């Protein structure tokens, strides 16, 4: 039997073929050890149990968030024999596994993102209300999708919903969710609001919404975000990064749009209110006009009264000047050639004069004129 002798290159090539054939993608769950990040890009770690350890290699983009040695993790990757560096698993996804590790990863990422103010209240924007276009990131086969669209349809059927259909759990979910959020933001006419939702599930099911890639995509969304993950009690980092949080997918629909019926009722009430307001305005104006009318009448009356009073006193003064009144008392008016005689020089003896008394006109001739005093 002939011995098969390989060159190292051939051996590596054939070993890799065998590994690919045997495993394709291998899923390995174990304890994380010797975790380190190089040049902020390459990630090296071991995954181990009591008996064995496996070297792993990943890019930083495959990480769900900060990880620590000792965590239980599940990796998906292809085992490979590197021509220079030996055996390692090239990791496509790595997820914390088991309640303790999931909680630990959650806390680590929360602290990290909090320190960047990603959850800060001051970052929260108001959602346009009501929106005309909604971008919905969820699985189109989920109950969350059905609940959300059903309630929107019943409350406010005037919207257009663009669904970005993604997986919402499993190893592919984080990258798909992040890509969907980016895609929605890159639309030529972006939606008014971006809704990210899924229904309840185990901590493992909801892990994608505590993934750094997803949380960052939500925080970076230019479209205001509304996020509802799981049930009321579940708190996800995706929700903390959102502009608005809803407790369930149904609740998200209720927060996103008004209810047509109650809006209609409100509009009808406004109608009555407007009519009342304009009526009040007209009434107020009418009574003001009435009041003005009264004031005018009063002031015209006063004006006439004053004029009348003035006339009476003028009449009295004038009557004192009436010469007739003087003649009545026995005085006479002496005139010569139409002019009243006032001094001795006005007439001479022999000249004719006219004497007017209250009751008579007398013609006479002057016989003598003398100066008085």
């Amino acid at each position, binding site marked *: 039997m002939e011995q098969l002798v390989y060159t190292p290159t051939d051996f590596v090539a054939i070993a890799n073929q065998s590994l690919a054939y045997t495993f394709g993608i291998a899923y390995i769950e174990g304890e994380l050890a010797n975790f380190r990040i190089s040049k902020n890009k390459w990630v090296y770690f071991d995954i181990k149990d009591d008996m064995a350890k496996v070297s792993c290699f990943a890019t930083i983009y495959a990480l769900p968030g900060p990880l620590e040695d000792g965590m239980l993790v599940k990796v998906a990757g292809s085992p490979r024999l590197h021509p220079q560096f030996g055996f390692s698993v090239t990791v496509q996804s790595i997820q914390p596994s088991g309640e303790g590790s999931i909680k630990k990863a959650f806390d680590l990422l929360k602290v990290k993102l909090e320190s960047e103010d990603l959850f800060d209240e001051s970052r929260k924007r108001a959602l346009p209300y009501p929106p005309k276009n909604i971008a919905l990131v969820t699985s*189109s086969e989920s109950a969350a999708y059905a609940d959300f669209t059903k309630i929107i349809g019943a409350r406010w059927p005037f919207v257009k*919903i*663009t669904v970005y259909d993604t997986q919402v759990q499993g190893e*592919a979910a984080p*990258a*798909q969710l992040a890509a969907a959020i980016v*895609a929605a933001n890159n639309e030529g006419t972006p939606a008014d609001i971006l809704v990210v939702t899924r229904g309840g599930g185990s901590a493992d099911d909801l892990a994608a919404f505590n993934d750094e890639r997803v949380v960052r995509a939500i925080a970076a969304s230019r479209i205001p975000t509304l996020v509802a993950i799981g049930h009321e009690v579940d708190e996800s980092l995706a929700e903390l990064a959102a502009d608005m949080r809803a407790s369930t997918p149904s609740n998200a629909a209720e927060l996103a749009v008004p209810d047509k019926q109650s809006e209609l009722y409100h509009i009808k009430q406004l109608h009555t209110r*407007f009519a009342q307001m304009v009526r009040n*305005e*007209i009434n107020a104006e009418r009574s003001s006009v009435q009041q003005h009318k009264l004031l005018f009448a009063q002031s015209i009356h006063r004006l006439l009264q004053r004029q009348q009073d003035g006339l009476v006193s003028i009449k009295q003064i004038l009557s004192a000047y009436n010469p007739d009144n003087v003649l009545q008392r026995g005085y006479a008016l002496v005139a010569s050639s139409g002019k009243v005689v006032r001094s001795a020089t006005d007439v001479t003896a022999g000249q004719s004069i006219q004497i007017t008394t209250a009751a008579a006109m007398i013609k006479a001739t002057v016989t003598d004129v003398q100066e008085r005093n």
Partner: protein
Amino acid sequence: MAKQEFDYKKKRAELDELLAWFERGDVSVDEAISKYQQAEKLLAELETYLAATQAKIEILTKKITNPE
């Protein structure tokens, strides 16, 4: 855009503005009547829009697969 889309949000905001105007008081009757006519027109439009029975949400689905 050939057809002018009905902008509920905008019309609703206009209505709120008219309401605020009325509530400020100190208004002239001429203006009040003209604003009331505006409000009535808006109210009627909003009512008609909301009462539209054939309204139905439009859903478009885009499948997102794994990037790269």
